[in-house]
């Protein structure tokens, strides 16, 4: 018996030893890649810088970005398809909002990558000159992302270190600390970036300086803001497009007015659509989506069917009556250059009597069209009275005047959601208006009027330049904000402009009757994403922004 036991145990040991060599249990992952392997060569580090730029695509040209940067202001309200009416009209706005969640995640992921790059660039093996340029780019990007964070959420989490292990706490850092870092980073960028680049989309010296002027203006540093803007105007080599409408031609994307743009590619596989192979953690829609968001529902109208030229109507947003009223379209080319008011019959199957293919099928108007006039027309008319109630709240949020800046007739097919349209983040007109606002704040209304008139002269219809000129007496903050609305409507800046000038609550209450009853003083920062609140372990220190649940 004893002998047998020995035999068994011996056999057992032999078999166990034969199979359990320690080496078999190491993780073997030849397909994986780590930061240590990739970010330590010049070619590898380039991928970090490229990826650091790519996070801009989560904000610019995306529904989440539009809802956070243009909506909830005086110039837009919800159309029927709005996915984030809480951001638009402040109804029950909470940290559970999907746009807030997505942008909180992506902006901090971008900051973490920038921090990683800035801290690791010494090990990248770059020649000194390249190293400085890449560091300047990453520092610009960090400042750029931190500005979005601090303006959207206020004094929230701040760090300049890379996340290398599990961290379950977050800090609340004063807004001043963010801006100190933003100015540090941008000044480094301006001092070290080249003035031009052959890589369209990379930041240049003047792009960084233009953004710096926006930062100075935001912090009330008017002289610096003016200086920076004027430096860009004088030395940057940028030129206003002669016709405002030309800014939005797909054939004119890389025009001389653009100081800084977020690049999208006509090769859709280089864009950011989530794809199991190309981009496993990509965006659910991908590309520039601006063309979808503002389009009214035209494809159920008599004589109309959906086509590439007229676009795919998501019908998310519509202008407030206030925005439409801001334009004097007789003189100002920006109304026609920004909005679409007519649709032409393209569907033989549903042509109304008396209308041929190519004839006007649908008209939208900011004016009230008399019923008698309407009765004489064979086409459908949606006018002021059908779109808005007397108090300015929306009546018909399906058919109304639509923003046409981002339409893209070059998309390959009618339902294609990805547009290759680059997003203009900063263009030269902003430098004039930044400088004008700074000059106004410094008490120099003459200079301010001169600068504003540069923009308005370009905006004038042929022969209407004189009517478009303003005098120093007309210049005040409200005028500047009105002008910025006329110039930049839809360009993902409005919410920041109103917040910067402390006019958000006042103007929404006055000019956006759909949102007016709901907006509160605490809405000048957005709610912190609920998954952040849920995940932190220092809940007593890291709390939701005041006013939100």
């Amino acid at each position, binding site marked *: *018996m004893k002998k047998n036991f020995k035999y068994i145990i011996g056999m057992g040991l032999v078999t166990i030893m034969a*199979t359990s060599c320690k080496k078999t249990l190491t993780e073997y992952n030849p397909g994986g890649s780590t930061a240590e392997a990739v970010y330590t060569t010049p070619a590898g580090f380039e991928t970090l810088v490229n990826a650091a*730029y790519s996070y801009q695509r989560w904000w610019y040209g995306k529904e989440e970005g539009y809802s956070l940067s243009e909506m909830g202001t005086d110039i837009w309200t919800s159309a029927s398809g*709005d996915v984030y009416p809480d951001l638009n009209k402040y109804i029950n706005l909470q940290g559970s909002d999907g746009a807030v969640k997505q942008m909180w995640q992506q902006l*901090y992921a971008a900051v973490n990558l920038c921090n990683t790059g800035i801290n690791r660039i010494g090990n990248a093996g770059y020649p000194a000159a390249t190293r400085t340029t890449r560091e300047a780019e990453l520092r610009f990007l960090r400042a750029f992302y931190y500005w979005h964070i601090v303006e959207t959420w206020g004094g929230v989490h701040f760090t300049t270190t890379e996340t290398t292990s599990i961290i379950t706490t977050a800090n609340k850092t004063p807004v001043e600390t963010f801006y100190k870092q933003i100015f540090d980073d941008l000044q480094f960028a301006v001092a070290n970036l080249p003035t031009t680049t052959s890589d369209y989309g990379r930041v240049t010296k003047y792009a960084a300086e233009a953004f710096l002027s926006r930062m100075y203006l935001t912090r009330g540093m008017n002289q610096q803001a003016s200086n920076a803007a004027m430096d860009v105007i004088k030395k940057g080599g940028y030129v206003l497009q002669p016709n405002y409408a030309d800014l939005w031609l797909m054939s004119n994307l890389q025009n001389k007015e653009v100081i800084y743009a977020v690049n999208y590619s006509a090769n859709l596989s280089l864009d950011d659509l989530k794809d199991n192979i190309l981009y496993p953690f990509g965006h659910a829609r991908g590309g520039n989506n601006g063309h979808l968001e503002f389009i009214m529902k035209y494809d159920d109208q008599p004589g109309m069917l959906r086509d590439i030229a007229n676009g795919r109507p998501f019908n998310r947003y519509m202008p407030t009556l206030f925005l439409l009223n801001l334009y004097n379209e007789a003189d100002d080319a920006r109304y026609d250059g920004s909005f679409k008011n007519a649709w032409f019959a393209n569907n033989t199957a549903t042509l109304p009597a008396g209308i041929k293919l190519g004839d006007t099928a649908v008209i939208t108007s900011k004016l009230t069209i008399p019923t008698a006039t309407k009765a004489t027309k064979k086409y459908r008319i949606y006018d002021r009275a059908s779109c808005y109630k007397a108090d300015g709240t929306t009546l018909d949020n399906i058919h109304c005047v639509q923003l046409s800046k981002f339409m893209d007739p070059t998309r390959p097919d009618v339902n294609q959601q990805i547009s290759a349209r680059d997003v203009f983040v900063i263009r030269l007109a902003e430098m004039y208006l930044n400088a004008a606002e700074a000059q106004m704040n410094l008490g120099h209304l003459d200079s301010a009027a001169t600068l504003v008139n540069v923009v308005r002269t370009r905006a004038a219809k042929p022969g209407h330049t004189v009517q478009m000129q303003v005098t120093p007496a007309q210049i005040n903050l409200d005028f500047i904000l009105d002008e910025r609305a006329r110039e930049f409507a839809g360009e993902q800046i409005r919410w920041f402009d109103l917040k910067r000038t402390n006019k958000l609550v006042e103007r929404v209450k006055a000019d956006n009757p759909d949102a007016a009853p709901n907006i509160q003083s605490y809405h000048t920062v957005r709610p912190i994403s609920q998954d952040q609140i849920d995940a932190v372990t220092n809940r007593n220190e890291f709390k939701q922004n005041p006013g939100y649940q």
Partner: protein
Amino acid sequence: MIKFYKKARKAFCGLKPHFFLFGPIFLMFVLCSATSLGQQGGITVSGTVKGTNNETLPGVSVSLKGTTTGTTTDVKGVFTLKVPNSQGSLVFSYLGYTTLEMPISGRKMLSVTLKEEQKNLNEVVVIGYGTVKKRDLTGSVASFKGDDLTQVPAANVMESLQGKVPGADITRSSGQAGAGVSITLRGNRSILGSNSPLYIVDGVIYYGNIADIDQNEIASVDVLKDASSTAIYGSRGANGVIIITTKRGAAGKTEVDANSYNGVSQASMYPKVATGPEMVALRREAYRASGKWTSPANDNLVFSPYELTAIANGLYTNWQDLVLHRGSQEDHQVGVSSGSEKTKMYTSLDYYRENGLFKNDNLTRYSGRINLDHTVSDKLKIGMQAQIVYSSQNVRTDPLNQANKINPIGEAFNPDGSIVMYPTQASAINPLADEQPGVWADNVKGNRTFAAAYAELTPIKGLSIRSNLSANLTNSRTGIYAGSFTITRNGGVPRANYNTSNGTDLLWENIVNYHKQIGQHTFDLTGIASYQDRSNESGSMQGDNQLLSSQLFYNLSAATQGVAVATGYTKQDIVSGAGRINYSYQGKYLLTLTGRSDGSSKLAEGHKWTFFPSAAAAWRLSEEDFIKKIKPINDLKLRASYGVAGNDPYDAYATQSLLTNVPFSYGETPAQGYTFNPTIGNRDLAWERSTTLDIGVDFALLNSRISGTVDVYSTHTNDLLLPRGLPPSDGILKTNQNIGQTANKGIELSISSVNIKSSNFSWNTSVTFTKNVEKITSLVNAGVNDIGNGWFVGYPVQVFYDYQKIGIWQTSEAAEAAKYGQIPGTIKVKDQNGDGKIDATNDRTVLGTPRPKWSGGLSNTVKYKNLDFSIYIYARIGQMINANSLNFSDNQGLQGNTWASNLDYWTPENPTNAYPRPNSNGGMQYVSTLAYTDGSYARIRDISLGYTLPQKLTGNVFKRLRVYVSGKNLFTWSKLKNYDPERGGSENFPMTKLALAGINATF
């Protein structure tokens, strides 16, 4: 339950010679009795049959050996039988008693005593790395053989066990061709790890689709549930173990089995969507609500010109009818069993074909098996089992999603019979688009080679040393071509994909068994060393806009844009050593001790190894004298076990922080990016451990007519592998950590009863009942819920967390509604904290869980002469589902059709509390609250009627020939009148009901 099956089967087996051989002859005898009686001379034999306790036994079958002559005892146990002469023997058989053969030896009066049979307790149950007699079992094991497995013909053997395994929650995942079943044993323990039980096929760990093993090839299925039974599998046993043993050859005459069935299927219950006229009414109401419609005079503002024409002419389309068809299912299998004393062989060929409910939704599978055992010498045995499976599945993008959403106003076809690509002039593509020739292909080809070889050495008596080497090689190819006008591309450029996957799964195990009896002490010792290596390589290719659709996915070089490729590799290893001692004293006191050490490559350095111990004891009370005195008790066993099992992460590389690629460009110049994966590696990742206490009773009563098993258990899982959400301010979203705890407590019961048993007629009933309570007991921060992930302490792992609808705001409540920003006709939800406003933080609550409160099965089997009939009812009660059909997602009435037919929605004239008022202005809140509903159901899972042809007709060709018809899911009781709740809420790939006819033949 287990006992019942064994007993019942044994009874049938015991009866088989009578029933299947003599039965038909007996029948013939009855038919011919008019003539035969008169010709018989002979003598009459009579007598009384009693049990060992001197009780008389009614209904005992008495027959003259080798003839058709027979009778049964009456209520007093008395029989009378005419026999030709006083030679020969009488055979007495009775359920639960040993069959007795008694020579007549010239007697006319016979006194017969039948002994109670204990045979079923000696039946062998397969446990991990060995077998035990059922009487010596210490753990909780459910065991199935023969009829249990094949009574319900199914594409997947586990489907035929639905409701028969106490503690198992088995549901079919959808009605798609080849859809799998989802199985959990005793609830869900793990969040990140797997909750699927481990499959062992012929002693080898099996990863992959269990449907690949045809149910006719399977000799037995044993389900191991408690920690003591599963501990021998260590880490992989935490979710229970299902051991499948395929048939093997036997020495003797070659036996051929052929099984075949054909069936037709259709959607079992499926909700209708709004008809054209209903849609018209609803759209008008939506625009009336927003003030744009007052009478049909305004229709031109509400409907497009195309729709107006269609409405005027009554042109509507029922899209469901166009896409839903009848499906079919068929299976044909031949198995051959043969062997000599030294070499035994079993081989089988199977063909399975299923057509789903849509065109081009089908699966074809061919499989072949050969099992070989050869005795080299009295000390060495070798063998091999090998299975080859080839399958080809055509996958269809579910068109119902489109059909249920598309506008019913208008027509699907052009006058020339071609489809209208965008019906009603709108943007939604025709649900029939993918059925157009040449536009769509999605074909999955799979090959599996599953082979194992063994050598077993028995150098001395009682000692065996066995080495198993197995390989499970899988490769699959998925080819997809989607033309421009298909549901997925919707007018975009055509896209082709070609994806391959190659899996290599190698397992080498060495097992030593030693059996020794010393007096009344019996020892069984087992030692195991095991090494498993699993690796997978994959490749994916994608390209857009090829010129010729006829090239499908066979020429990706033709793609002119969007070309993308990826390859991947994963590898995971487990090294283990295990030992087990089974000890029995007098067959009365039983003890099992098990220990296993597992090392996993998927865990962090320093945390790779762990030890899983367990102990179990059983006491066979019925062997004790004081129980033996209690006559009604035939068998009674108390069992208790306690042990630990574990789990490692499902996916490899959870300890590593990796980068992920980002496509980017400057201008049009590609610029590859790499950024951090949103999940950061955890360098401390360790084992998840589940501790289970199980107490059970096995019993057999009243001459074993009633037998059953009861188990209560409690499982605590610690160091839960949790995909933990990190503060996104880290720039990282998740990590995998050992945090949190879950608990599962439950009771399982199975009882079977032999209601009637006689030579011509039998009726058996069995009942199973399962109740499991699953709870998360702790998460990242003790006592704090993880709302982001939907995990709540005190609730199951999966719950529905939302606002709670309490009605619709009525006109009289307008002022109150306004306080919440609502108007009459919108959804009223409960203000849970009563603060006068509705917000996501305070007013959402756990509404329910998809886990059932209990589930159970009731099966009845009746045999009358050559007819057999069975009906099986399954119930799953108390679960909540989120039924899409109850939703109201396009509440604006703009274009789509997501409403159920006959929907009770609010209007000023219809102040219902069921559904809100459609409103073309949109912005409706809390719509998701509408679809939560009680998903309880009970259904006749299977109803079968079979007839075994008399030997007279089948002659010498067949040993046995049975024909049957069967219906699956023919009747369902549920609160949802037109939706099959087993589908779980989705409207895609509806569940099916199936009617089939088949044949079982043995040559």
